[in-house]
């Protein structure tokens, strides 16, 4: 499982381009920064009030300088602090270039479910609804199947919805899909070690195949 998370995070890091403003959710998305080449400079936004968040410092950790999960971070040159209303103002109104969120289920039309498993886990929605609503580009990261081997890319989400029609791209350890116009799920990429059958048999939602399908070979 640890490996799968890193494989997904590494692939997601390749989506990040120079100069982007990026917000990362908790879970797998929080692993993404370690796979971004140091030559690519990005500004991470943390919804608890930082633009230009830097890595965890090795020493002099400060309880009053943390990421949204409560862990110590640093601030980069050019970074700023602000209150929660300003933070979510920039999130809702489209100033975040890329939002990368963990997911429990995503539908073929880009509906995202990631805030509650009724009767089991009630973490709460946090900032996910607004990140999903406002980001210019939203990538959902998740293992391809749940721990019982059932597909997580589904026709219709069975879990309560976070936001409808919001996901632009799904990255799993098996595949990369894009969702075109909230309508068409399209396979863009097959990840190393898998073939088309592995994906077809474990994706509940119907999908088309990109004419430029990339088939990654094992390294």
């Amino acid at each position, binding site marked *: 499982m640890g490996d799968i998370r890193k494989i997904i995070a590494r692939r997601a890091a390749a989506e990040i381009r120079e100069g982007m403003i990026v917000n990362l959710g908790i879970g797998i998305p929080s692993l993404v920064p370690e796979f971004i080449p140091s030559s690519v400079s990005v500004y991470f936004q943390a919804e608890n009030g930082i633009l230009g968040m830097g890595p965890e410092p090795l020493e002099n950790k400060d309880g*009053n300088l*943390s990421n949204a999960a409560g862990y110590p971070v640093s601030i980069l040159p050019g970074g700023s602090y602000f209150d*929660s*209303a300003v933070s979510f103002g920039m999130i809702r109104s489209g100033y975040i270039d890329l939002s990368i969120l963990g997911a429990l289920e995503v539908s073929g039309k880009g509906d995202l479910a990631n805030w509650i498993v009724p009767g089991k886990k*009630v973490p709460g*929605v946090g*900032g*996910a*609804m607004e990140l999903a609503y406002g980001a210019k580009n939203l990538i959902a990261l998740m293992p391809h199947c749940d721990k019982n081997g059932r597909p997580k890319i589904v026709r219709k989400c069975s879990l309560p*919805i976070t936001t409808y029609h919001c996901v632009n791209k799904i990255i799993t350890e098996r595949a990369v899909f894009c969702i075109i116009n909230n309508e068409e799920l399209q396979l863009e990429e097959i990840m190393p070690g898998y073939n088309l059958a592995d994906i077809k048999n474990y994706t509940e939602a119907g999908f088309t195949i990109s004419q430029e399908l990339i088939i990654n070979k094992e390294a």
Partner: protein
Amino acid sequence: MAEKNTFNKCTDYKRIKSFFRDDMKLLFGGFGGVGTPPGLIDCLIDSGAKNVHLIGNDAGFPWIGIGKFIVLERAATLIASHIGSNPVAGDLMNKGKLKIEFSPQGILVERIRSGGTGLDGFLTEIGLGTELAYDKPVIELKNKRYLYESPIKADVGIVYARKADEFGNLVFDKTARNNNPYVAMASKVTIVEAEEIVPVGNLDPEEIIVPGIYVDHIVTSTGINWKWIWETLEK
């Protein structure tokens, strides 16, 4: 405490205790406990206040921030954006001992801001058609549907600041600012715990984030008295 007390706002924890009453609505500053006033949380616990209606970003951790109060089962309701870091809050909710209303994080801040700025709420598409719409009114305007989000005000608000002057002008510290400015604005009685209280005139007017008009009482902090999650894991 500053030597003078020109505006009679600087006080001590003993006198603050009487503001914490049964059945009160309490707004608290903080994000995962960062920016939650540790001394005022202890004061709230000591006050014995029960059946409290809490409003804030999250449920803290069981040993951090508002979480320390929640685990005592003296909160009746909580409006928050998530409780993932405090499993006790989830247990209390499932047992029917704590009623929780979830709100999208920034929408909650805007509701508090609305309460603190004399507005009557706002419209948003966020949450429409989801479980978090609860029974909020749906308003149709120009062929678009919106949820109406009502303003939030509280009887008492507790705020953590880096510095306060005797008038209650506030300066914050990094990510400990979060929702604290709006808690100060939306509460009938705003109590500030500041790491440092300075005489009036000692703060640069350009650096003041919350003007003192919103602040009623100020106490000096004795510092963070819990271990952060990353400190407990580092052992």
